Every structure is written in C-alpha cells, then in structure tokens.
C-alpha cells in the first residue's frame, strides 16, 4: 500500500481511479489541476503520482518536467495517463520524464502491475 497523488480534472475518471486504487489499499489524494498537484507533491511527497496529461492550465507533461527537474521531487515515480493512444504521446511523456505510461481507458490489471513495478524499484533518485 502506498500514498498516491492523482492529478485528474474529469470527475468520473477520478472516481474510477479512486475505486480501483482504494480497492488494493492505496491511500489517494486528488488534485484537479497541475498547479495544485505540484503544490501537493512538494508539501506531501507522495510515493507515486498518476498524472493526467490533458489538464486545464498547465498540462501534465509540463508539470512532470517541473517535478523531475526539482531534486526534491525528481525521485517520485510519475505515471502519465492519456486519452490519446498515439506513439508520439508515449515518446513525449518519456521525454518529459514520466516513469510509466497508461493509455486510457484505465484498465485495472495494467494499472496495478505498473504501480507495483514502479514502487518495487529501489527507491532512490531515478538517475
């Protein structure tokens, strides 16, 4: 079980993610935009971040680049969530520094596996 921050602006998607994450015992906090998400990451240092890419205001990739550029938060694994299943989106999310990538719709097996893999990684700076 881990402390996870979900950054997602769509309320139905938030509910779905909460359902899936609570079911396996994760503790979840939510932010509805990147700016709030960044503030919460800096304040609470969650174990993992699920970051929607398309957000109002600052987008999820910019937020990821910011968090990965800050030595205080660079070690926190970030999973990009995107509704666009294009190869270029995956590339872009890697470039921004995301540790994992899930194309929506959110499927629970894939979600659980990726979270477990990233949390099992030796918890140090990723570079």
């Amino acid at each position, binding site marked *: 079980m881990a402390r996870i921050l979900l950054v997602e602006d769509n309320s139905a998607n938030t509910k779905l993610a909460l359902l899936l994450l609570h079911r396996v015992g994760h503790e979840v906090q939510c932010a509805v*935009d990147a700016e709030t998400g960044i503030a919460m990451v800096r304040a609470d240092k969650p174990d993992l971040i699920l970051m929607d890419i398309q957000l109002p205001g600052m987008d999820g990739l910019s937020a990821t680049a910011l968090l990965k550029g800050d030595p205080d938060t660079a070690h926190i694994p970030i999973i990009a969530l995107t509704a666009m299943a294009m190869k270029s989106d995956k590339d872009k999310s890697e470039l921004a520094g995301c540790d994992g990538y899930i194309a929506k*719709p959110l499927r629970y097996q894939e979600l659980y596996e990726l979270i477990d893999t990233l949390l099992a990684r030796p918890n140090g700076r990723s570079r």
Partner: protein
Amino acid sequence: MSHELRTPLNAIIGFSEALKDGLVGDISENQLEYISDIFTSGQHLLSLINDILDLSKVEAGMMALELEPVDIDSLLSNSLSIVKEKAAARNISLELDIGKDLGVPHLDMRKTKQIVYNLLSNAVKFSPGNGRVVLGAKRVGRASVGKLAGLWPTQDFDLANSDYQDFLEICVSDSGIGISVANMGKLFQAFSQIDTRLAREFEGTGLGLAMVKQLAELHGGTVAVASAEGQGAHFAAWLPLRVNATDDTRDELESIAGAPSGQATKRVALVVESDKRAAALLRMLLENEGFSVLHAATAEAALELAPKQLLSLITLDLVLPGMDGWEFLLRISESKDLARVPVVVIAGEADTNMALAGGASVIMQKPISRTHLQTSLYGLGLQPSEQKTHTILVVDDDPKAVEVIAAFLPTPAYAVVRAYGGAEAITLAQRLQPDLILLDLMMPRVSGFDVVEALQHNPATSKIAILVVTAKSITAMDRSALSNNPDQVINIVEKSVFSQVRFIAEVRRALQPPH
C-alpha cells in the same frame, strides 16, 4: 477533439469492467450479462472512434509520414503473431512468403503495421474454419503495381505520379467468402461493410480497408483487390521502396526549422542540451515566456540549425557529447550573425568566469527555476511577450465563487490555481510564486487581511500583485490595512460590480509590472 471524444468512454469502459469483474461486489448473472454488453460495446465504440480520428487526420493532411529503416521480415512475422490466436481458434493456417531482395526499405513503421494488420485480420475474419491465409511480400516494378496474379476480377486504383520505380507489394490471400464484382468498388470506402447481414455476423468498424487505402496513398502507393465469390480474395498494398530516405529527412528538417519564422511575432530560442529531461524543462519554461523553441542535442546539430533561424536566444549546456560547449561558444562568436545572439550558459559555479569571458551573456546553474530564468531574460531585455501564461491564484472560501472567477480567466493566457482558505493560499503563494493573487477578504479562520499580512512579511511573496475581490464595502480603514507596503500592488474589485469585461481589465492592470 480526440480527447473530448475519448474521455467519456474512459468512464464507461473502466466502470463497466470494474463491475463485471466483481471489483465492486457481487452481481447477478443477468446484471453480469448486461454489464459485459456495456463493456464490449464501449470498447467497440472506442476502436471506431480511434479509426475515424486516424482516417480524418489522413484526410485532413494532418498525418505525416515518419520514415525509418524497417526490418520488413520481423514486421510481417510480428503482424502474423497478432492474429495467430484468432486463426488458431478456427483452425485457420497462416503462411508467410517473403521475397529475398527487399533490403531495408524506409517506411513508416507504425502505418505499415496498420496496413498489414488490417489486411490480415480481415482475411482471418472472413475465412471459413480450416481455411488458409497467406501473407506475402515482394519487390515489383512500377508497371506491376495494381496487378494481381490469377483470373479473378480485380478492382484497382490510380497510382499517384512519382519517380519511384520499385515498390514493396504486401499481399494477403484468403480462401474466404469472397466479394462480388458489384461490391468490390465499395470495399475501400469508409463505413461500407458491404452487407448489413455480414456486418452483424462479422463485427468490425467498417473502416479498416479505407484506412489501408489512405495509408498506402500517404506513402505514395496504392491498393487493389481481386476476388471471386465463394472462392477467396487477394488484397494488396504497394508502397514505394525508398532505400535511401535522406532527401525526405532533409525536407522535414527544413520544414521544422522554417516553421516558426512564419509567425513574425514569435521569438525563437535555440536550446543546446544533451539531456532530454533538462531540454524538455527548458522548452516548457521558454515557451511559457512566449518563445518558439528549437532543440539541438549536440553542438554540431546546433551549428547546423542556428544559421537557418533568426534567433533571439541560445541556451547552452557546456557539457555536450562530441564538440563541447566551449568550442561552440567560440564558433558562434566568430559568426557575424550569431555573435549578436545572447547566450545563456548553463554551467557549474566554477566555470562562471570562464564562460563570461568566452562570450556568455548570463550564467545559470541547474536546477533551472522559472524565477531565475525570468530574471535572466529580463536582464537581457527579453521581457515575456503577450503569449505568456499568467499563473493566477484564486482564493475564496466559497468554491462556487472560485469557479466563477476561474471561468472568467481563459486558458492558455491564464493558468488558475485554486485555494479555498487563507492558510492554503499562503502556502500556495509561497510555493508557486503566482503572477497575481485574486483574494477574497471575508474568510473564516485566516481572513484575506491575514493573508495580505503574511505575504508582506515574507520577502519571497511581498512583491506578488494582489487583486482583492470582495463583497464587503471597503472602508478607509480597510484600505490602509491593505496598503502599508509600497512594493505590493493591491487593487480592489467589488463583487457587486462584477462583469467579465471589467474583471479582465482589472486583472490585466494588476499584472502590469511596476515601472
């Protein structure tokens, strides 16, 4: 557009899957059946939407060809393995027949896979049990394009004019139900599964072949079909064999480099940085300041890119593979055009003096922060232009009031951060350094007055502009309580006179930097 279409489906597919798999608790058999129907229909709709979006992208000329050397053998065998399970379920045999003289053609890998996969899955779908599907690939001359072996009636299409003489023919043959001559013409049109009865029996989007044709044409090739009813069908796609793609790559590079110059008002920054994360961060920060950003991962690439652009700024990481940053500095100082471009050097403290002597305008250390970059840009006379996004912190204990204000502030000009209490507002202001705080005064526990006081006591926040948005009539005493710091610009809007026009005007005024 694509995002809007797919977002509702995330909830439909995600929740129905969670329900049907019992993640939410037990359900009856009837419920399971219906929920499973919602799930499969949702998935079907998603694949439809994906296909339509792809197709409309090609039609709108928005899909670009991304050519790369492709190992055609493994591409074809991988495609076969995707349909293996479906074929095995009905005992259909799959065969592969690849010519030896194909070399390593330059193709768009993803789109070629889509072509092969669509043809193969159709062939498997329409084959009877115990049937046979053959995937073939060979080199043919231009004169053979559109021609299929055998005596079956053929439907082909015009091949676009080009200099290509050699083509890769990808052909899929099946022993399935076949297509009548009358129906062959309709095959490659979108949504024309030729028979509604068939459509029910063979689920599909009816877009696969239309997509195949579009993708082949995008490559500069074409498609054809030959079939006899009840006997089977041959489907083929021809793609030009570009063995050397350098010409296309160069065109592409030029179009990328040339793109920003079309927008005369946008300033161009060149980021020379080998670390891709650092480059992504710089790109974001600079775009936020209204720059178009070009990126070069090496000094060599930067020297090639730089002369093609009217650059306003270069950022340079001294640590580079190959030619290092010092040499790059030297080279550009020798160039008449480039010597005038300010260079922000990203270096360790030890190198600061050397870099300044070498021609750097400003030195910055990693990690790069937004504030530091902004200060450097101001120092260089590169003030943010109009395209800059302003970060605005909206503070009100009434969430509805926050949403009303947020709705008034359009993206991308404004990025809105929300705070629902005074304490939260103080923390967020310190962390985010917003360009402007829109502040309600009457809040429980920590009031707007308290927020102003706290911000003024902290040097990091004492210069952030504040626009007080209040339902309270402001008294002279309130005014003096709010304005005992000459550095902090505080304006006031009363909610009673609230309109978007007036409001935006006040926000703009508050954002004007103090002179």
